[in-house]
């Protein structure tokens, strides 16, 4: 099971967290880049340890924008086709699979994996419940809203994500 990248979008449709892993067979190795720290107004500035080796030549910010455009359109399409109670789960292309999970508070978790990965609906739910809520929401230091990814990249959350990604079957 290969995880390529992980995104979190807030209800303002802004990307507050990006994480990419080397595209190697082992599930998750040393993270490529520290998460997005960005002032809300300007484009997302990424502090990147090295140039991401992921295939797409897009910068992280562009990729985040495109990913959001895709999930937002597909989410609305599914709602239009099946009514409000249906929700978009995932889509697969020939090369990768995108998993999607949206909380009632319109927080959107997106994970790109290889195509053999089964549904990550419950896994992303775990990320929300055990990691995001515990280490970000309940973290007194982080602001209520996370414009520009502020406060999401705290230590505990990072470690949690890493160990979690290794456990995904």
């Amino acid at each position: 099971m290969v995880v390529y990248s992980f995104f979190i979008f807030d209800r303002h449709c802004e990307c507050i967290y990006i994480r990419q892993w080397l595209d190697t067979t082992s599930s998750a190795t040393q993270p490529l880049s520290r998460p997005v720290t960005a002032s809300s107004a300007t484009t997302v500035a990424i502090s990147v340890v090295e140039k991401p080796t992921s295939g797409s030549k897009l910068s992280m910010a562009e990729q985040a924008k495109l990913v959001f455009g895709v999930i937002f359109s597909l989410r609305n399409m599914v709602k239009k086709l099946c009514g409000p109670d249906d929700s978009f789960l995932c889509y697969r292309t020939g090369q990768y699979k995108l998993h999607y999970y949206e909380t009632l508070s319109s927080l959107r978790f997106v994970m790109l994996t290889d195509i053999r990965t089964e549904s990550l609906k419950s896994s992303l739910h775990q990320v929300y419940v055990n990691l995001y809520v515990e280490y970000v929401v309940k973290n007194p230091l982080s602001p209520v809203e996370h414009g520009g990814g502020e406060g999401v990249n705290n230590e505990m959350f990072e470690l949690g994500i890493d160990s979690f990604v290794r456990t995904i079957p």
Partner: protein
Amino acid sequence: MAKKEQASCSSTANLQPTLSQPHPSAASAAPASPQARFRYLATMVVYAVLILNKAGGLIYQRDFNPGLQKLSSNDYLILAGTFHGVHAITSQISPTNDSASSGLEVLESENFVMRCFQTLTGTKFLVFAEPRQPNLDVVVRRVYELYADYVMKNPFYQIEMPIRSEGFDRHLTSYIKPHQ
């Protein structure tokens, strides 16, 4: 071949009312004998079929079983255009670095699964079905064959325009809802 298939399809459908184990067919090649292909499709529940021309224009939309909301034809047009744009972007954001990354092929939601097959000529076939529908690849390939036969070979069909071929409707219905 279509006529023979239609006859064989209806006869075999009622011969084997209990669905045998779905035929383990390779992803791309359809199961060899037509009879086998139709026996395991007997309980196929396809909600709808949409066809988009290479510019993303909706040229065909048909509901077969209840499962999706009834949309206005205008909504379907918008939906088709949006999907066309999304499909192109999904191949752009592919994290793997091989250049020939295909666009979206399968979309899953709680209530339906959608198989999108894009031909080398850019035409897109969208088949919506119930989530546990086995092997939509065979279904979408068959729709493509019927399109190649009853739309492309119909002199009264104008390329890239909406499809109004009675023959295509008839054969598509008898394939997707064989025993009704």
